[in-house]
């Protein structure tokens, strides 16, 4: 079966360094797929190749049968891929509600629309959608706060909410729990589980934290030194000797 995301023979070199070597990856629709690997395994490079920030030297990346290569990040996003960053990328100077409105507009109007006359809150339908998203993320009542003033956990939830507001078909998460306290991490896991249950969505997650990975993932790809090591179910990965070897010596 053809996955929603098909990565074929992707290579990327930085000078003398082989960052990605013949990476193949297939993410099945409506699954949660985790990509793990030690530091420097090429996880972030791979992610950047998927969203248009980096251009692979060779290989192909197909999303829903269409190539994403050579497209800009915003074009790829409009195809249905949203990305959550390691440190939340939100519009700090804007209010929470304004933050939420932006993806709503982007979903409806595409990558550019000269929409300079009406009031942004006159679009009742979109405002309702934004408010609904905030409510479902337990952020009602924070509408008029500056996003930068929120706690880190709230920022993360806002970022995820912003991505979901675009109704993406594929959500990419780049170490969403990095640097979080255990309680926050668990909240995030619950949130992602909830999202998974409530929506038709494919989630690809890059994660360091095995606890998160094994709580969520349905399939796992292990990268080491830019090469895919194994791809299997969480149960099989857990005891896999190659994986243990790859992680050997890494303090964890």
């Amino acid at each position, binding site marked *: 079966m053809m996955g929603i995301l098909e990565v074929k023979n992707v290579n990327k070199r930085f000078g003398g360094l082989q960052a990605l070597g013949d990476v193949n990856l297939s993410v099945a629709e409506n699954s949660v797929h985790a990509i793990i690997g030690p530091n420097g395994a090429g996880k972030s490079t791979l992610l950047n190749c998927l*969203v248009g920030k980096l251009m692979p030297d060779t290989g192909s990346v197909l999303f829903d049968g269409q190539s994403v290569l050579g497209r*800009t*990040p*915003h*074009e790829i*996003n*409009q195809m249905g891929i*949203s*990305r959550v*960053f390691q440190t939340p*990328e*939100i*519009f*700090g*100077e*804007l*209010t929470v509600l*304004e933050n939420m*409105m*932006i*993806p709503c*507009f*982007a*979903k409806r*109007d*595409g*990558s*550019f*629309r*000269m*929409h*300079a*006359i*009406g*009031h*942004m*809150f*006159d*679009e009742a339908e979109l405002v309702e959608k934004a408010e609904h998203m905030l409510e479902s993320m337990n952020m009602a009542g924070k509408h*008029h*706060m*500056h996003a930068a*003033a929120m706690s880190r956990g709230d920022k993360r939830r806002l970022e995820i909410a*912003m991505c979901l507001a*675009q109704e993406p078909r594929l959500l990419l998460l780049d170490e969403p729990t990095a640097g979080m306290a255990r309680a926050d991490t668990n909240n995030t896991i619950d949130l992602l589980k909830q999202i998974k249950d409530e929506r038709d969505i494919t989630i690809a997650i890059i994660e360091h934290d095995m606890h998160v990975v094994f709580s969520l993932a349905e399939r796992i790809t292990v990268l080491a030194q830019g090469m895919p090591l194994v791809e299997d179910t969480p149960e099989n990965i857990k005891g896999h000797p190659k994986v243990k070897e790859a992680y050997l010596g890494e303090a964890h």
Partner: protein
Amino acid sequence: MFGLDKKDATLLVIVAILTLCAPFLLNPFPSESALAQFNAGYPDLMQRFVIFGIFAIGFNILFGLTGYLSFGHAAFLGVGSYSAVWMFKLLSMNVIPAIILSVVVAGLFSLLIGFISLRRSGIYFSILTLAFAQMSFNLAYSVLTPITNGETGLQLTLNDPRILGQSATADGSIPVTSLFGLEMRSTYELVMGPWAFQFNAGYYLCAVIMVLAFYMSIRIFRSPFGLMLRAIKSNQTRMSYTGLNPKPYTLAAFVISGMYAGLAGGLMASMDPLAGAERMQWTASGEVVLMTILGGAGTLIGPVLGAGFIKYFENIFSKINDTVLHSWFSFMPDGLENLVVMLVYPFIGKGWHLTLGLMFMMVVIFLPGGLVEGGQRIRRLFRRKDDTPAAKTEPAE
């Protein structure tokens, strides 16, 4: 009201009332009193207040919202002025076609320059705009003299081949600019006891246009488009990863602000049909940056305040000479009078640049949000007395 929420509508109404009453408000001192020196309610300066207000409002749409610092906006103002004067020379003395042409030409010119300059960001963008503007100035001053009349500036002459209208009036003068027959320079003078107030047709045209421009700027600030521009300033990464293309948004903002500058230039030429190359010099571009920041970049009213402040300084403070000073302090004993005059003189009259520079540093150091922030601080100071710290984060005004 007008598609604005209550707070914005109030602001608009206040601004409208203030501009319409400006002839009274700017002439608070009786014309014979010593303080009449500080009166600013004469047509030329009032026109400049609102015209530079328009310029700064437009600049703020680019700089205040997207954070792109252009050092070349004066070029659009200059191009607007030249187009307007050419329209007066060739077509008619009516200001409407001239203003329309200046906005269109400035829009096209800014589209070209914006398209190229916006390929870079940060200081590289600033230097690109600066380079374009300086090129325009240098060329307008010398090589393009057939079009711009170089050093002297483009003026009307008695031989202009005006298609709609005459080259010279019956008594051998150059016709004056008008709005369907209402001469822009006609002034109604109201004398009330010791006070004299001047109501100038040109000023009111500019004032109405400025209120409209201000209204447009509020609409843009509050629109989804304005939201996108603020998003660009805040976080371009998130912007792209939300499927939005920042380039056309910034370019649109650049062109809109260029058209505002062209409008200001066209109005300037309509009030006084001359277009000089100095209008395009980089210091003129710097001036609008100063206005915007002095007033408060990214705020609605800030740029207008800043424009008024700087123009007031340039036109009122520069005219205070030592004779005037001596007459002010003549009540003091001679030695003291001379001492005071000596201490004050470096800062005013020919020294007004020094005061401007100092004030400017003070504002940037202590009031990064400009005069608007100063106003907010004062308001908060008063509010704190009866209000508990309800002062929470206010959305950008």
